[in-house]
């Protein structure tokens, strides 16, 4: 059958089982859009900005575990997509981005809407391809999906010149499988590493499991739970890992790191054996490396060898799928006796007793933390929650205990403001039966507002919880603590009337100014199953996120709300962000 390049691309996407594409048309992709128009199996979501397309594909991928797909045109289409691509890359999200490119004959001539897409994206993709020959196209698409979804997942860009989409060839079908000598993602767990790890685990008197995004991406929640319950060890999870192990379980110590709980950070600091599962010892987690876990032997399970020993040197590294590694550990532990850790749990309970997430209420003021607690109550903890970036993101992580994976969707690595709304739209399309809430702030939401329009067009009802405090809260918090309260450019004046704005986009808008109105408004919002509801909630403008490990400090030097003086941060700390 003779097909043009655009038709081969769409056929290939169909063969990959793709149901949704998020994109925006333009000159270089007109042929692709023409082929897409003739295809009934794939639904195209016309976003309002290419960054929104990539974030939506990202949210779709995170909620479903499938590969997200975005389609953008050349030049500005691609450059607008870059923030989304970098966001997905930092959080290891499987995604294929197809971008149009000017015709091969004019590449390099500064043609209209030409950018070096492969060059621009090189450092924020797992891999990228430039296709200039129609006969390579199907193979490249196959490779792109294979690379994006295997090993440590990540975004893969396919840049296709316009002449390739127009050219015709005999299409012999989409390849069933692909073999690449330079890319072998299947890694077998080394048995001797398991033996070494077990030797440390059975001796551990103060063990802790530190689980990260790899447990979610690697679909290892069940194995992680079996391992955790079998050992009886305490478990703490990173921002990206939340939900892999149920947060409401008694073995869970909550999140660790900069805004983690007291018990999680103190347990990390005092631990004699840390089992890191799909986590990468990111700077938000470790704080000051010189003071990080001084007494612990470290076992590190990760699919990516380059994550091991990058920030922290480890005693045993187990390279491979988190699921495989944990299964091997569970198997090896069957006939082993573990050390008694009653004392350790008693110590942890003392730390837990500090109640580090306690916050002071003020009459007449809505506390942002109480909004998240009310959201948890109203949704019974069963909603997918996306967030933007800043204080509100931390409050969700702290006050909405996730019991299941793929419910918590946020930009952890890159910290991209504007991520939440399009990601919520993508998540809703991936899981239409689920409630989806987007917790945001008046700063973040204005970075991707235009997607409210897309959400009406494709009927993706999302509840937007806008914690409106008039400040870029996290910036304001750092300025209060570390810049002598010089609030440079962190106050947002001239905000729109979000209620009217939501209405003008055809959605429901509700303003919440009083504490008493909070829960009824949330109940009303979630009652509106088929409508997007924008809750503009005026919250305490000076609230800060606690607990906090100031940059440069160690886990045991964390600061608690209302109990510690924030005045000190060393110069080394100020160099960090």
């Amino acid at each position, binding site marked *: 059958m003779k097909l043009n390049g655009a038709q081969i691309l769409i056929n290939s996407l169909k063969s990959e089982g793709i149901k949704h594409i998020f994109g925006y048309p333009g000159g270089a992709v007109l042929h692709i859009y023409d082929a897409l128009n003739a295809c009934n199996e794939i639904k195209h979501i016309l976003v309002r900005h290419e960054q929104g397309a990539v974030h939506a594909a990202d949210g779709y991928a995170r909620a479903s575990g499938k590969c997200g797909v975005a389609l953008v045109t050349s030049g500005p289409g691609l450059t607008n997509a870059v923030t989304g691509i970098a966001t997905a890359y930092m959080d290891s999200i499987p995604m294929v981005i197809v971008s149009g490119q000017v015709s091969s004959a004019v590449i390099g001539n500064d043609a209209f809407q030409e950018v070096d897409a492969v060059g621009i994206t090189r450092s924020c993709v797992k891999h990228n391809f430039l296709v200039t020959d129609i006969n390579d196209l199907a193979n490249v698409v196959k490779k792109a999906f294979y690379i994006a979804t295997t090993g440590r997942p990540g975004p893969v860009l396919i840049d296709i010149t316009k002449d390739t989409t127009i050219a015709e060839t005999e299409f012999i079908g989409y390849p069933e499988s692909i073999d690449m000598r330079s*890319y072998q993602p299947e890694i077998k767990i080394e048995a001797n590493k398991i033996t070494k790890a077990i030797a440390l685990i059975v001796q551990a008197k103060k063990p802790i499991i530190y689980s990260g995004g790899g447990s979610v991406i690697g679909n290892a929640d069940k194995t992680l739970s079996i391992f955790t319950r079998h050992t009886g060890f305490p478990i703490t999870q990173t921002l990206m890992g939340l939900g892999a192990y149920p947060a409401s379980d008694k073995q869970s110590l909550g999140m660790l790191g900069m805004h983690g709980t007291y018990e999680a950070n103190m347990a990390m600091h005092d631990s004699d054996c840390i089992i890191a599962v799909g986590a990468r010892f990111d700077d938000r987690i470790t704080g000051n490396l010189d003071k990080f876990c001084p007494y612990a032997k470290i076992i590190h399970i990760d699919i990516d060898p380059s994550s091991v020993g990058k920030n922290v040197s480890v005693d045993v590294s187990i390279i491979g799928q988190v699921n495989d590694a944990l299964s091997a550990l569970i198997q090896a532990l069957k006939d082993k006796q573990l050390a008694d850790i009653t004392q350790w749990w008693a110590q942890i309970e003392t730390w837990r007793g500090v109640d580090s997430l306690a916050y002071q209420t003020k009459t007449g003021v809505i506390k942002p933390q109480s909004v998240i607690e009310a959201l948890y109550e109203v949704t019974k903890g069963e909603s997918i929650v996306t967030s933007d970036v800043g204080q509100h993101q931390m409050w969700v992580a702290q006050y909405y205990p996730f019991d299941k994976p793929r419910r918590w969707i946020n930009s952890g690595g890159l910290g991209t403001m504007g991520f939440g709304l399009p990601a919520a739209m993508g998540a809703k399309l991936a899981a239409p039966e689920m409630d989806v809430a987007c917790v945001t702030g008046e700063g973040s939401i204005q970075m991707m507002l235009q997607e409210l329009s897309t959400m009406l067009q494709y009927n993706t009802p999302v509840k937007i919880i806008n914690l409106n405090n008039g400040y870029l809260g996290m910036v304001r918090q750092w300025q209060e603590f570390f810049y002598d309260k010089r609030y440079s450019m962190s106050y947002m004046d001239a905000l729109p009337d979000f209620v009217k704005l939501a209405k003008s986009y055809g959605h429901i808008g509700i303003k919440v100014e009083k504490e008493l109105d909070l829960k009824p408004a949330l109940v009303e919002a979630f009652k509106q199953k088929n409508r997007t509801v924008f809750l503009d909630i005026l919250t305490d403008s000076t609230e800060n996120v606690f607990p906090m490990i100031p940059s440069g400090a160690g886990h045991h030097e964390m600061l608690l709300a209302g109990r510690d003086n924030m005045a000190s941060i060393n110069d080394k700390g100020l160099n960090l962000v």
Partner: protein
Amino acid sequence: MRYIISVLLENEAGALSRVAGLFSARGFNIESLTVAATNDSTLSRMTIVSIGDDNIIEQIVKQLNKLIDVVTVTDLTATEHIERELLLVKVDVNQQTQADIDKQIDIFSCKIVDLSEDTYTIELAGKSQKINDFLASLDVSKILEVSRTGVTGVCMKITS
């Protein structure tokens, strides 16, 4: 420490920039980099000389392995290996200096590959240190142009 890393990678457009980009993006040093196709025209061999401590070199090797186009990465300095570099240097020659330059050429076993009335173009292959030594033996004011290829190398034992 100075490390020599040998990378076998797919001979694809853009492969060189992926490696070079990786070094700049992650703040690794490149002292020299050479690349050319191998006997298998679908593969290129790249030899990189870098300076760093053990941790940095470990990261470099791991990050290189992570590149999709990379087939194998070998730290040549961790094994017995042979390294060579090629120098082409053009020097000013006159009656006063010629004898001295000829002597150095003889000591270092260089070849004169081109000569004109008042210049020599000299070729020397060898370890980088030997090339450094040869250049140091010349009168700086007489050196007109230096071009070095950077190091290439192979393992002494048989590898795939």
